[in-house]
């Protein structure tokens, strides 16, 4: 039997994130830019620091004890990652620099493996540039067709919308699990079912989803799942590419060099196996260790509990912001991650963002690396407030009052 989610001891949780006590422009920081990057708990900061203090060495190379310690920690991080997303084997976990790097790896190597002139690649209009440009580039390069599936007025996109665009030429669907601008959550499980009936490979950008909900790649049955550690309360410069082993075994390498070879001769080099095949060069060892600490932290906290806290604060924020005259929330999906993109008629998002900053409130303004969405709504950009489990109703209220004050100053 599932237990009902517990209420987070929010003061305790917040005290584990030292940056949340910072003063910005003389005010206590209200950090609502979590979709850009999240803050890090002491457990993560300590893990990175301890690694450099006590265990730093290169991995997979040395016979000496320190190198073996570093290798163990690095491979334990892979094991932790495998467990975290319910993959079947550590061979399916490739460490990359982050989401963008992961998408580029898949686009490059899948392109080489299976995309030919006249083939079709499906993406959506709500993709972040990082899951948009690599596919656009690949399609141009290979003479393939890029099909871009639009979303409706609420920012929703159904599996049937995807199904309609699949044809005999379709090879790949690259799709976000949750939109970084609209917040929309897509039904990836159903999209994978539809795609697999037609032998289409599904690549999922989970960067915005995994900080909020539990991911189970086996249940989703996606072929690739991609995310960054830094949005998941871990360090920057490290991310994950999950791939089904059957696919990774066929995929040619992306970058070549040290650490990914089997044997190097003057004329010919034979390559190693996954995951090392895709991890040329010295990896971000401290990053992987920091990321695995973040995963441990989230496991201890419990996704159900953090979702509970987020939902409460988010509902409050949605209601409050929705009550502001002339404020338009962009996107109104039923299933959504806790972020609000909005515009105020006649006011530039940059002006609101600048004034909120004076009040210590960190939001993002601009196009959020989703220019096609901005073009779709014909707006220059939005203000985006994005929440994490450490945000409180009090902070949502400070945001609300900050917007009211900004609009008064700007009127």
């Amino acid at each position: 039997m599932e237990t009902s989610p517990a209420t987070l001891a929010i003061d305790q949780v917040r005290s584990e994130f030292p940056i949340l006590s910072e003063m910005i422009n003389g005010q206590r920081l209200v950090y609502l830019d979590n979709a850009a990057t999240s803050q890090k708990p002491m457990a993560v900061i300590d893990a990175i620091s301890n690694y450099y203090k006590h265990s730093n060495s290169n991995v997979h190379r040395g016979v000496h004890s320190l190198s073996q310690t570093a290798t163990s920690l690095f491979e334990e991080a892979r094991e932790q990652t495998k467990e975290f997303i319910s993959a079947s084997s550590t061979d399916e976990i490739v460490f990359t620099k982050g989401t963008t790097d992961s998408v580029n790896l898949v686009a490059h190597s899948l392109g080489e493996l299976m995309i030919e002139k006249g083939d079709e690649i499906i993406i959506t209009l709500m993709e972040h540039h990082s899951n948009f440009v690599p596919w656009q580039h690949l399609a141009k390069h290979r003479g393939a067709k890029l099909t871009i599936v639009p979303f409706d007025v609420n920012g929703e996109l159904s599996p049937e919308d995807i199904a309609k665009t699949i044809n005999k030429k379709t090879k790949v669907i690259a799709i976000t699990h949750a939109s970084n601008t609209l917040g929309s959550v897509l039904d990836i499980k159903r999209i994978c079912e539809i795609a697999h009936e037609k032998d289409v490979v599904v690549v999922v950008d989970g960067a915005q989803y995994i900080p909020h909900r539990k991911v189970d790649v086996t249940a989703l049955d996606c072929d690739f799942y991609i995310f960054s550690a830094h949005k998941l309360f871990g360090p920057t410069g490290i991310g994950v590419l999950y791939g089904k082993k059957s696919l990774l075994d066929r995929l040619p390498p992306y970058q070549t060099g040290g650490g990914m070879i089997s044997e190097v001769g003057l004329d010919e080099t034979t390559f190693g196996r996954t995951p090392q095949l895709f991890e040329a060069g010295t990896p971000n060892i401290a990053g992987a260790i920091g990321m695995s600490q973040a995963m441990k932290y989230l496991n201890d906290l419990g996704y159900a509990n953090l979702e509970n806290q987020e939902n409460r604060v988010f509902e409050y924020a949605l209601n409050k912001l929705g009550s502001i005259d002339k404020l338009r929330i962009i996107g109104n999906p039923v299933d959504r991650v806790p972020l609000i993109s909005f515009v105020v008629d006649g006011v530039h998002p940059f002006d609101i963002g600048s004034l909120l900053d004076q009040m210590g409130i960190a939001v993002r303004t601009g196009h959020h690396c989703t220019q096609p969405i901005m073009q779709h709504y014909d707006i220059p950009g939005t203000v985006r407030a994005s929440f994490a489990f450490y945000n409180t109703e009090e902070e949502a209220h400070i945001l609300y009052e900050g917007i009211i004050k900004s609009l008064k100053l700007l009127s």
Partner: protein
Amino acid sequence: MTLEKGDAGIVVKQEEFVEQFSMFEDWSDKYEYIISLGKLLKPLSDRYKTDDNIIKGCQSKVWLHAEIHDGKLYFTADSDAIITKGLISMIVSVFSGHQPDEILSTDLTFIDKIGLTEHLSPTRSNGLLSMVKQIKFYALAYSAKA
């Protein structure tokens, strides 16, 4: 350089802004004033809002137009964001109506002194820093011609 009566130099104009801002008690007074300057700035004629005149910041757009009359450079500018507009209104009024050599040899100091340095940071993405560079660039181009 000798100044004509009533024609304050770039340094003096900057000092006037510093004095003006020293009267404000908190950030909201300061921003209220900048916003009011932004509202007062005459919109740039559409014929000058060309791609040649646009200074692309990541978020707010800035247009800058320059003309030279009797050896002095005159600037007009506009932006789609009101705070940016207020800031460029001050910068344009400081540099406009001066000889290229004076523009080139005088540093922009008042933004720093009135506590708005963050708006000139290269990461601020409001196009302001690029605009100042462009003003200096015009001055350099015209001073070479003279």
